[in-house]
């Protein structure tokens, strides 16, 4: 059973608010739905809030990169917000990075970065 991550729309900003632990297929589902939404509503910006995630491993990190990249290919900007300190540490130690992805501390910072109203 796939847990659907809620995607909220505020003007031309989409916010994907991850509520809890996600399985690999939940993440894949989020990627395709987010891209569909970006196209459907012609979103200019996307924020993915990962503050509820306490594990972001190689698959999760890779998928976040891909989400950002695919959204950008549709002319929108993506920001990942809320990476928890322990998660950041695990990622660094695992040798993972989100080099091509914009990150911010939280939703407020994310919106500031995007210049959204």
């Amino acid at each position, binding site marked *: 059973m796939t847990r659907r991550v809620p995607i909220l729309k505020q003007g031309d900003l989409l916010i994907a608010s991850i509520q809890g632990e996600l*399985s690999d297929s939940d993440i894949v589902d989020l990627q395709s739905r987010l891209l569909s939404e970006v196209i459907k509503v012609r979103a200019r910006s996307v924020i993915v809030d990962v503050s509820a995630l306490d*594990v972001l*491993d190689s698959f999760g990190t890779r998928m976040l990169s891909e989400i950002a990249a695919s959204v950008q290919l549709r002319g929108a900007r993506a920001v990942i917000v809320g990476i928890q300190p322990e998660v950041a540490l695990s990622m660094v130690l*695992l040798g993972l990075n989100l080099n091509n992805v914009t990150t911010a501390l939280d939703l407020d910072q994310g919106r500031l970065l995007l210049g959204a109203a």
Partner: protein
Amino acid sequence: MIDLAQIQKVRSDGDVVAARQIGRKIAEEIGFSRADQALIATAISELTRNIVVYAGHGEVEIRQVENSGLNGISVEARDNGPGIADIDAAMTDGFSTGSSLGLGLPGTRRIVDDFELQSILGQGVTVTVAKWKGR
């Protein structure tokens, strides 16, 4: 009081999440810091996903362990899948880049204290890792 030794059958990505959660609870019970709990859950995630992706099914055993007065957690991920053809390559960082994520083993080894891998081609893989509290 939760059971400090649990075995999770692994068949699908839902089991990967379940194994992470078991690992996190046991780690928390043992008294690991939040940071270490996250590392342990991440290691479990990597090892368990390998079972699903490469072998289809297997199991992971997570339990509290003790050694010379040190408390720790042990995670053993085992399957009877195809095994690893080139273990040296799998344990090299570069192996994980490119279109495939690889096995994530070098990274996993970095985040645990003890790491042991056994694989016989055609028979499967057993990866055993341990993390000690206070080390």
